[in-house]
């Protein structure tokens, strides 16, 4: 075992792994983190704690991860390259390891210009860092863990033992380079991969075939990303505006139909769409897990953590293995 994390153990056991996501709040409200963690406890093997996602200031990933751990949910601390240089990153990694965190997902991070896709003020005037990129950050974690060395070469008496993750956008542009992108992350030392949300299962399977041809599925654990759709509008938005995500028309139509079935009743429209969204999610989970080379799913119910229990149960992924 590289890290002894629960996620690593579940993957090693051969069971399909389930990760979920917990977004920390934009305030000092630790209670909210704990409440969200309670909703996820027992329904995932680990939960990603986002790191100022969409470049919006929130409770730090490490602090929220520690709170989740105290609530009995194993966290996957996310770390972006946007906000810290290699000195701060490694200091945070040492601190996180000392607090008992065992999984780290390395990301480039959304550009600060992107701040909440324009819905919030954010900090578009911030200076970004990008001292290292994702591959390089993965390599730093590996060097710390396996060689007991800091990036600069100084020795670590006690090395942080992280299960190292990275993201992958299989359907991103330029599409024929994406398998190489994945390979570089694996070659840098990524033990697991969580993908961007998948709706176009055919497209995903074609990219997975290329990844398998490179032997990558045997060198890293690929968890397919599922973003739980909540409304037809959300699916339309993701299809048109989220990079690397395309949503088949059939899925959008299903959601829009659910909405129309409610007539003018807004409450009902919401309920019907959410129910349809959960149905779609469960289908996608099965389709992703049936794809050769996939070792699990990463289910993101954005600001809807309460949906995870039902999804995991209905998908037949409950109870989670205790390993």
């Amino acid at each position: 075992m590289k890290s002894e994390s629960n996620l690593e153990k579940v993957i090693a056991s051969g069971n399909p792994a389930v990760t979920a996501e917990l977004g920390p709040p934009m305030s000092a409200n630790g209670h909210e983190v704990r409440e969200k963690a309670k909703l996820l406890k027992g329904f995932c093997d680990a939960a990603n704690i986002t790191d100022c996602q969409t470049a919006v200031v929130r409770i730090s990933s490490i602090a929220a991860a520690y709170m989740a751990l105290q609530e009995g949910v194993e966290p996957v601390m996310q770390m972006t390259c946007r906000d810290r240089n290699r000195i701060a990153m490694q200091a945070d990694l040492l601190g996180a390891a000392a607090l008992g965190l065992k999984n780290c997902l390395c990301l480039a991070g959304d550009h600060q210009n992107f701040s909440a896709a324009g819905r919030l003020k954010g900090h578009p005037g911030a200076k970004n860092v990008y001292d290292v990129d994702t591959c390089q950050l993965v390599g730093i974690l590996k060097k710390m863990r396996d060689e007991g060395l800091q990036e600069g070469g100084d020795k670590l008496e006690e090395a942080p033992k992280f299960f190292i993750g990275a993201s992958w956008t299989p359907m991103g542009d330029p599409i024929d380079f994406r398998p190489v992108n994945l390979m570089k992350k694996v070659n840098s030392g990524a033990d697991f991969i969580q993908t961007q949300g998948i709706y176009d299962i055919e497209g995903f399977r074609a990219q997975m075939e290329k990844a398998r041809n490179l032997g990558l599925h045997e060198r890293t654990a690929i968890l397919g990303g599922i973003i739980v759709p909540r409304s037809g509008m959300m699916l339309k938005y993701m299809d048109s505006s989220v990079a690397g995500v395309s949503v088949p028309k059939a899925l959008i139509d299903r959601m829009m139909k659910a909405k129309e079935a409610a007539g003018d009743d807004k409450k009902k429209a919401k309920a019907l769409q959410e129910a349809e969204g959960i149905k779609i999610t469960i289908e996608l989970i099965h389709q992703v897990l049936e794809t050769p080379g996939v070792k699990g799913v990463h289910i993101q119910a954005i600001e809807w953590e309460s949906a995870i229990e039902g999804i995991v149960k209905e998908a037949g992924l409950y109870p989670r293995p205790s390993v």
Partner: protein
Amino acid sequence: MIVGSQKPIDEIWDMVKEFKRVIVFGCNTCVAICHAGGSKEAETIASMLKMRSSNEGVDMDVSSTSVMRHCEPEYFDEVIDELRSYDLVLSTACGVGVNFLSERIGNIPVYPGINTSFFGAVPEAGVFEELCAGCGDCILHMTGGICPVARCSKTLMNGPCGGTNEGKCEIGKDVDCAWYLIVQRMKDLGTIEKLSEVIPPRSWSTSRDGGPRRVSVEHIREYEESAEQKTEAGGSK
């Protein structure tokens, strides 16, 4: 070339309004090409300041002049005495020119008339594009001649992020994704497999992060010194 753009006239006015004698000092190389600070622009700013001062009832004497370059002393030597007869030099050279002149002019302030932005080129008339960030350790041979330091919004070294959208960068639809261009270019050159190698964390010590930089070309310095000695020896004959 160095690309800049004119500061808003209100901002300039706020900077200069306390001075009695102001000279706008243009530079006729890079910043003239980008229509920010050449002799023409210096004249325009001077006449705008004249108008503004008379409108506001401020007694101000404004004129303008310009030279070919502000970044080598030979070029401004010929006008330096004239400049010294003013209370303020409003330089429309790039920031390099403002710094350089500040250190040489004596106790007269030199203020910036333009915002200096980047090193760039002119893809079409009136458009200027950043292409190099002067990182001090060029890697263009590894990226098909397209710079990820200057042109990728995240300075990524190992390929595109997840935000690339139809060839555009996640920061906006009018910004090309450098990595999209790099992949395309290296495919065309038949060198795409080079991109499979992981580029390790780089040393930024050669860039601004390493502190102010200086390049010293030893053989030129030696040559200049020996030439000086020869002239001195010749003179004493």
